[in-house]
């Protein structure tokens, strides 16, 4: 079938190409090998010097190039990790067989994202980190996305095995709305959540060409959102990377059965790409991951949740009647039986009234019995990704791309709660035209949360569905009193009361439990269940033009613009969209001018961007950078950057009852009329005498100043990168509680009045500063030692201010690797160590101290050149030292795997 299709395509293409191929041409063929081990080298760019004619070697290292030039012809061979080579061909009838020398010089890579034009990484005007395909090949990480976490200045928040959220410069959290992630130019945020879902949706590991990370503020080029960094992931072009590749990883996790029984880890990936006459190319990718997830098993008591500032404290289910375990769900339901149940008992049994009065006026708070995460959240992590692209060169300089990627799976994410993503689906589809100086691109993101549910809400409702609190608490309170009256001590009385009220509680895993659970989780949150419906979409179109050909004499100028539309659709369950979808339009435009001065010693760039969201005032974000070349390959960079983000779609339009008489609402103006705030002014809950003042809801913003140095020392063997920054954040978006009296002008009663949680901007400014220092040292040819140290700090925090900074003061990474040693240099290895300091974590779900984390990752690989294959034995956190990097998140242990890869480049 495939063959049949490709014939058809080739015939079509032959027709097209034959029109152009009227001139006299010659065809040069040849093969490229690695000089150090004689392995074939695929995906080497082979171009005719001084022309746009070029091709790539295939998966056997062979190339075939047709040109109208006459011999002698100079061919330029280049590939990342090899020294470029020029070969003069006199006789075109003989094959050109060349050997490329692996590069011993560092810092030769080219980056695109720092200025939206290709430039040497050494000359990048802002800090940038790059991970290329060869780094992915040698990394011990089980998933390419994990590598981001070992980059300088990066904090990774691990919600679960497949849901990881990177950030830089502090403010880490799972589901980071201040960090942009672009995959092949597409913003891969979930439109209803406003943050990227990591690598659940996106590229398959075999298709990743490179990842570029811009730490810190980066709105000036990439638009709103990138306050704390932007990650750009690029896939492999099917013209260059062809043939069949596959990789299978078989591993084990939870090996010590400490939190969950020993379980397997499976990852299968396959990629197929074909380049047809350098005119048409296509690729298909699939990746499937299956494992039993890490368990979030923090059983500590979360004390003070109601105050909004809970902390892990003492007590267990057996010693605290109001126990509320961090990763135990359903025990968030709590009431004071002294005020809620005892009066009724005293009224019904007057003879007990004086006795009840001796129990005192202090509240006797009792929580319902919860269920463990293991009981509530499906441990099966599944992730299936499918991607494909069609590339067609309309002319040698103009390429059309039609691409799509689709993913589905189960995962767990921590936001204001633990959410089980079940059958979550997201697809991104793109059409793009690329020319030398311009591109236009349009894409859409289609999201469907599937059967995802909120663990706490579902467990609480499960309890209610089994036995309503209106029954459970009186049973509890009466048994408690009866036990006290029988001379039991207080704690025993509580425990006996719980045992009685819970006497026929469905056991986790039982038929009754499953039935109740499935019923509750399939009812939308808005209808009193745990399911959240989310089918929001995003539409995006953009274009860019490089005017340098016209303006080059004065400056290199780049202009671009985009349009973005969110279409929120929760069927009235999450957003205020019961009357129909909500559309939010945003437009933006940018311009960048670069000028080189003093014989290229100084490069100045100014960029500015203007964005207008229909719900907010327009924002201008400027950026200015300077790069000074102090010596060859030694550059000092200075930058001023700004960034901001519009409030997330949820912060604008959410309309959700979260229990306790509180309605979580967005900051959009439409809520003013809807809830009658303009006629019946709400009051602040902390001071009911005071009216709440609705101020203009504004985007958050940051200004950042940075100085850095990047240079090559020691004959190109030592690459040093250092930076220091200072940033100032303002208008942080937080939430506050307000109450509304039953009638306008009524007396506030915070207990019974309806309450609203509304987003507000915090006017106080927050300052951050920090530095990073990294070394990459090529010890001898194949040996590399990389180390980096970074620090982020928060300063001048107003008292009582919760900044969610969530960053350790220091973190440190070291990697020692060898890409080839032993017989025929077939062996390779890599060992990585990471340490991060202890810090205090603040989150919507839980707060608390995070201990220092040490992890050790390692891999050993063996090449089978005859079969173009690599066998790898790898491990993450190989000492199996469990850790968690945010309170309430999964406890991550050791993951050990064996992988077999075929034709991996």
């Amino acid at each position: 079938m495939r063959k049949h299709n490709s014939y058809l395509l080739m015939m079509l293409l032959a027709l097209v190409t034959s029109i152009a191929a009227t001139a006299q041409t010659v065809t040069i063929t040849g093969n490229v090998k690695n000089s150090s081990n004689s392995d074939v080298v695929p995906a080497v760019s082979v171009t005719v010097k001084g022309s746009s004619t070029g091709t790539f070697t295939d998966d056997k290292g062979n190339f075939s190039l047709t040109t109208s030039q006459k011999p002698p012809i100079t061919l330029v061979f280049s590939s990342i990790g090899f020294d470029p080579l020029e070969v003069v061909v006199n006789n075109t009838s003989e094959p050109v067989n060349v050997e490329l020398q692996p590069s011993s010089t560092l810092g030769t890579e080219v980056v695109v994202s720092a200025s939206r034009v290709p430039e040497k990484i050494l000359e990048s005007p802002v800090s940038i980190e790059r991970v290329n395909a060869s780094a992915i090949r040698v990394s011990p990480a089980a998933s390419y996305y994990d590598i981001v976490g070992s980059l300088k200045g990066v904090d990774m928040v691990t919600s679960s095995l497949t849901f990881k959220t990177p950030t830089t410069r502090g403010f880490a959290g799972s589901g980071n709305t201040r960090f942009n992630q672009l995959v092949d130019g597409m913003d891969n945020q979930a439109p209803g959540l406003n943050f990227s879902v990591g690598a659940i949706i996106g590229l398959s590991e075999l298709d990743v060409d490179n990842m570029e990370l811009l730490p810190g503020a980066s709105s000036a080029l990439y638009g709103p959102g990138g306050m704390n960094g932007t990650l750009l992931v690029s896939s492999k072009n099917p013209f260059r990377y062809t043939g069949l590749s596959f990789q299978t990883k078989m591993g084990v996790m939870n090996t010590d059965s400490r939190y969950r029984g020993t379980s397997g880890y499976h990852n299968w990936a396959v990629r197929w790409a074909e380049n047809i006459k350098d005119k048409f190319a296509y690729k298909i990718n699939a990746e499937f991951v299956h494992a039993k997830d890490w368990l979030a098993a923090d059983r500590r008591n979360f004390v003070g949740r109601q105050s909004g500032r809970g902390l892990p404290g003492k007590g267990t289910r057996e010693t605290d009647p109001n126990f509320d375990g961090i990763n135990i769900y359903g025990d968030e339901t709590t009431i004071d039986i002294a005020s809620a149940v005892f009066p009724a008992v005293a009224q019904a049994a007057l003879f007990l009234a004086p006795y009840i009065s001796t129990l005192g006026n202090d509240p006797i708070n009792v929580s319902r019995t919860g269920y463990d995460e293991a009981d509530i959240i499906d441990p099966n992590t599944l992730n299936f990704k499918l991607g494909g692209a069609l590339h067609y060169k309309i002319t040698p300089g103009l390429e059309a791309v039609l691409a799509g990627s689709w993913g589905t799976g189960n995962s767990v994410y921590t936001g204001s709660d633990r959410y089980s993503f079940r059958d979550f689906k997201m697809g991104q589809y793109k059409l793009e035209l690329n020319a030398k100086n311009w591109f236009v691109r349009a894409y859409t993101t289609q999201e469907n949360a599937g059967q995802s549910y909120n663990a706490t809400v579902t467990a609480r409702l499960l309890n209610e569905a089994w036995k309503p609190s209106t029954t459970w608490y009186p049973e509890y309170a009466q048994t408690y009193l009866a036990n006290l009256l029988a001379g039991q001590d207080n704690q025993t009385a509580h425990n006996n009361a719980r045992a009685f009220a819970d006497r026929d509680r469905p056991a986790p895993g039982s038929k009754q439990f499953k039935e109740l659970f499935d019923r509750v989780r399939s009812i939308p949150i808005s209808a009193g269940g745990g399911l959240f419906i989310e089918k929001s979409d995003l539409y995006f179109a953009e274009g860019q033009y490089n005017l340098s050909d016209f303006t080059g004499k004065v400056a290199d100028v780049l202009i671009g613009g985009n349009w973005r539309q969110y279409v929120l659709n929760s069927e009235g369950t999450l957003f205020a969209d019961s009357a129909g979808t909500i559309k939010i339009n945003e437009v933006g435009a940018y311009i960048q001018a670069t000028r080189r001065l003093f014989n290229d010693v100084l490069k100045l760039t100014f960029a500015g961007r203007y964005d207008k969201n229909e719900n907010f005032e327009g924002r201008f974000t400027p950026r200015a950078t300077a790069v000074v070349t102090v010596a060859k390959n030694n550059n000092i960079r200075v930058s001023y950057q700004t960034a901001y983000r519009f409030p997330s779609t949820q912060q604008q339009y959410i309309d959700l009852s979260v229990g306790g008489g509180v309605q979580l609402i967005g900051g959009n103006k439409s809520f003013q009329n809807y809830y009658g705030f303009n006629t019946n002014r709400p009051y602040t809950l902390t001071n009911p005498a005071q009216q709440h003042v609705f101020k203009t809801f504004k985007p958050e913003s940051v200004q950042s100043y940075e100085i850095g140095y990047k240079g090559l020392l020691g004959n190109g063997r030592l690459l040093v990168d250092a930076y220091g920054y200072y940033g100032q954040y303002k208008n942080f978006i937080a939430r506050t509680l307000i109450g509304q009296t039953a009638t306008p002008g009524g007396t506030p009663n915070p207990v019974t009045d309806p309450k609203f949680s509304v987003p507000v901007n915090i006017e106080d400014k927050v300052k951050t500063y920090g530095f990073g220092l990294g070394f990459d040292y090529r010890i001898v040819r194949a040996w590399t030692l990389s180390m980096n140290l970074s620090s982020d700090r928060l300063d001048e925090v107003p008292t009582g201010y919760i900044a969610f900074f969530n960053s350790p003061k220091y973190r440190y990474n070291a990697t020692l690797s060898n890409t080839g040693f032993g017989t025929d240099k077939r062996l390779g290895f890599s060992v990585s160590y990471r340490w991060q300091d202890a810090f205090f974590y603040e989150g919507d779900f839980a707060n608390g101290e995070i201990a220092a984390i040490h992890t050790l990752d390692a891999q050993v690989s063996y090449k089978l050149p005859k079969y173009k294959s690599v066998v790898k034995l790898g491990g993450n956190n190989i000492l199996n030292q469990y850790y968690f990097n945010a309170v309430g998140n999964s406890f991550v242990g050791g993951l050990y795997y064996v992988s077999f890869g075929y034709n991996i480049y």
Partner: protein
Amino acid sequence: MLTLLKKYTGIGLMALGLLTQITACNKIPEVEDIQLNQPGGKTILEIINTEAKYSILKAAVEKSGLAPVLGKADNNLTLFALDNDAMARSGISEAAIGVMPAQQIAAILSYHIVPQALTSANIPDLPAPNFQMPSMLQPLASQPLFKMSLFPSRRGNMGFVNDRPLTSVDTRAANGYIHDVYALIPPPQATLRDVIAAQPDLSFLRAAIARADEGQTGLSRIDSLLNYPFPNITLFAPTDDAFKVALQLLGAPPVVEAFAFIPQETVLGMLAYHVLATNRTPTYRVFTPNMVSGPVETLIGPAPFPHLTIDATNPLAPTVKGAVNPAPANIVEKDINAVNGVMHKIDQVLIPQL
């Protein structure tokens, strides 16, 4: 190959050695439990077991099986303790304990324990007559919230429980307090109805109740009210002799059959005038030590309905006077405690109006 292996093994081991040096253990914070404050000092049981004055009580506790409750350091109890003198006053010797059934001892002792730590200061003083507290004596197995109540009270420095004076108060134990009581507090055995039924000198009262209840149903029947286990009734019960005098005063013969000729309303009103109430509800169980000189409301109703007047000038022999009665009635037998109230036999029928 071997040399290669040796070379790289060496490097590998060195690297591993280095790495283990820097890799310390990650910490998963352990669940911390609440350290309960175990109160120091002796438990009630230990005090009973060690103090000589409680030797008979010690024997009783041992036999009753209540020792584990009294010896639990972290519960809260109040024991109205009988020292050897009190035991003697109540006619109980160590030998008697030996022959009494354990269950009976347990029931009696349970009626001396309140499942809450109460100091004398916790017991409200006037104007409340007393403070109803559950004992640990549970009459019905199916009703764990229903216990026989004790009625501690305080008159300034003088403490009582039911009608018994306390001889010593506030002995602190790890698990509560001990107050010594003058004599055994007999647990109530029956409701007021059954108590009345068993008294040979209250046949006129029974006849009066029967007359008043004619045609009545439910709790409107005095008979039912007196048998309902939960309220606190204070009943002044005129003896047969008192009724005979009263009947003659009304011009009727001094026989029980005479009630049939007196209007039902009159009998009902007269009986209601013998039960203390607050807003027509029997609320307090007033033992003689709880009586205070002055007017008291009855079931007839609050003012302007006629009240009773108590004279407790002599606390050991208080009197009660009806509105019409020319002289106060004497209490001839006091503080008969029932499940649902207390009864004081009096030598006059109290007359509210003519």
